[in-house]
């Protein structure tokens, strides 16, 4: 704390509420990050029996198993294992060398990350635009047949497996109509977007209904609020009120909701990568699983969780700064 801010704090009688709130959010995030690192360390212990034996299979010789235990650091006492793991994560941001590729897990993840991030981003944009549109429709036709139809959607889509939606879309748009490729991406930006379109739509489809459900309630609230009534009274055309004012004030909650749902979005993306054969983090995870590449699995878990926590903090802080009502109570 600088001298100036200290003096200001003393004059006001303690630090400002916004500072306390920021500090608390940060402290909570740091606690969660620490807990995430511990959880990732313990992942390897979920393996029933010996992890080294599980990696090498039933027919491994004793000396091979011993070598693998040394490689994984399993022959240290548990406390030292944890300290070594912690040191590695803190100094190099890594969970160890991949058993198959021989490169650090972090490097492999960073190489694959851009495609996954692009897919998540595309899906997020599509989901927000579609959800805002549908929520506006539902809210302006409240209790009409359209509203009821839109409200039934979440029940249906929640029970649709993402990979199954993906397969159906492939069947319709790639196999029958031949609009999109069956899987993979081609060279260049056009090929990339062309290849990512269907997977992004699939992931977005699974997100839209729950977004619509919450946004509809929020838009209804805005429509009832005093400022909209005032605008109406002032004689503004309702189309203009809707698109200029209502839409603007419900865009922030929409983005926030998506931040909350990011974990779910990312999980869906990983499964969808597998369905469409995209070379992102998801397919890296499945390769790591079929290779029994424990350090790489740990690395993927660590970085995905870190991304979720970071985005969560950013949306919390961003929303809190824009709208003090959303700040969590102590």
């Amino acid at each position, binding site marked *: 704390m600088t001298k100036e801010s200290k003096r200001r704090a003393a004059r006001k009688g303690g630090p400002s509420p916004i500072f306390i709130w920021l500090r608390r959010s940060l402290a909570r995030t740091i606690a969660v990050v620490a807990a995430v690192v511990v959880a990732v360390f313990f*992942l390897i212990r979920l393996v029933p029996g010996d992890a080294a034996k599980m990696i090498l299979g039933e027919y491994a010789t004793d000396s091979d198993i011993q070598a693998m235990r040394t490689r994984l650091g399993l022959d240290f006492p548990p406390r030292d294992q944890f300290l070594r793991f912690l040191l590695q994560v803190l100094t190099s941001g890594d969970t160890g060398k991949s058993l198959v590729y021989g490169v650090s897990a972090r490097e492999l993840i960073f190489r694959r990350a851009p495609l996954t991030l692009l897919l998540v981003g595309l899906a997020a944009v599509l989901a927000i635009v579609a959800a805002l549109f549908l929520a506006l429709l539902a809210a302006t036709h409240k209790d009409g047949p359209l509203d009821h139809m839109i409200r039934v959607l979440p029940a249906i889509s929640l029970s*649709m497996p993402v*990979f199954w939606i993906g397969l*159906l879309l492939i*069947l319709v748009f790639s196999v029958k109509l031949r609009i999109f490729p069956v899987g993979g991406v081609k060279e260049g930006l056009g090929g990339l977007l062309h290849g990512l379109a269907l997977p992004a739509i699939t992931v977005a489809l699974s997100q839209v209904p729950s977004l619509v459900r919450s946004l509809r309630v929020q838009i209804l609230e805005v429509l009832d609020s005093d400022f909209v009534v005032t605008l109406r009274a002032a004689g503004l055309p309702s189309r203009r009120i809707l698109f200029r004012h209502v839409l603007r004030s419900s865009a922030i909650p929409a983005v926030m909701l998506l931040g909350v749902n990011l974990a*779910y979005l990312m999980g869906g993306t*990983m499964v969808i990568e597998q369905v469409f054969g995209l070379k992102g983090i998801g397919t890296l995870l499945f390769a790591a699983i079929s290779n029994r590449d424990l350090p790489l699995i740990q690395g993927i878990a660590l970085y995905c*969780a870190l991304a979720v926590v970071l985005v969560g903090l950013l949306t919390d802080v961003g929303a809190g700064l824009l709208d003090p009502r959303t700040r969590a109570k102590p």
Partner: protein
Amino acid sequence: MIGRSPRPPLRPSGGRPKTPPLWIGCSMLVLLAVPAILAPWITPYAPGQQNLSATLLPPSRGHWLGTDQLGRDLLTRILYAARTDLSVMVLAQIIPVCTGVFLGMVAGYFGRGIDAAVTLFTDTVIAFPFYLTVIIVAFLSGSGQRGIYVTFALVGWVVYARVVRGLSATFRQQDWIAAARTLGYPDLRILLRHLLPNVLPQAIVVLMTDMAALLVAIVTLGYLGIGIMPPTPDWGTMIADGRPFLSTKWWLSALPGLAVVYTGIALSLIGDGLADRIRRT
């Protein structure tokens, strides 16, 4: 069971409130569950019965939904898969419901340190993308049904803990809990005989909605090859098996998926209906 609840007798004189979603959902579920339970007696085939001279048949009289690449009857397999998936779905919920409700009650009722610890615990589990955790934990703890149970015991409680914690924290402020305390009841008694009956209805609503999500997760694991293992029939592995024939025999993948969607809708309808009923009483 809710004799000690603070619930005012507000029910309108018109008798029981009508909740059509509840009944539609229940009948949908019964419509699937009864043939599934009776499957060994009503299907002319066994789920693993192969017939390599009758593979990939389209729907016909002998095979209502056709056969798969090993000549197994698709309808038979869908019904048997319902037995597996539905029972695994119910069994996998037992541990998470119990731990989630317990942790939520304790956190909301005692507050302070315990609350902070439970919240940190929940935040940590939520930080990992749901499907990422499910996939990794199911694989590490050994694929198959055991892996599914371990996975959901570790991950599934979060939903219940969050809802129940919020409820308990509000109830704690209310007079009836204060009254129970003034009477000198031990905390355990207040938790089990006063708080539990009041948080349970909400937990059951969450349970119904969560069941649908759990079913989808079980099926996804099956599809990825780390869930229920063949030869046990499961909708997920059936969808995966049909995938190579997607362009010509699309129903092999589409129909088992439809069964998942049907079950999920039934469960959500039941959840919505129950939620309505609780809100109205």
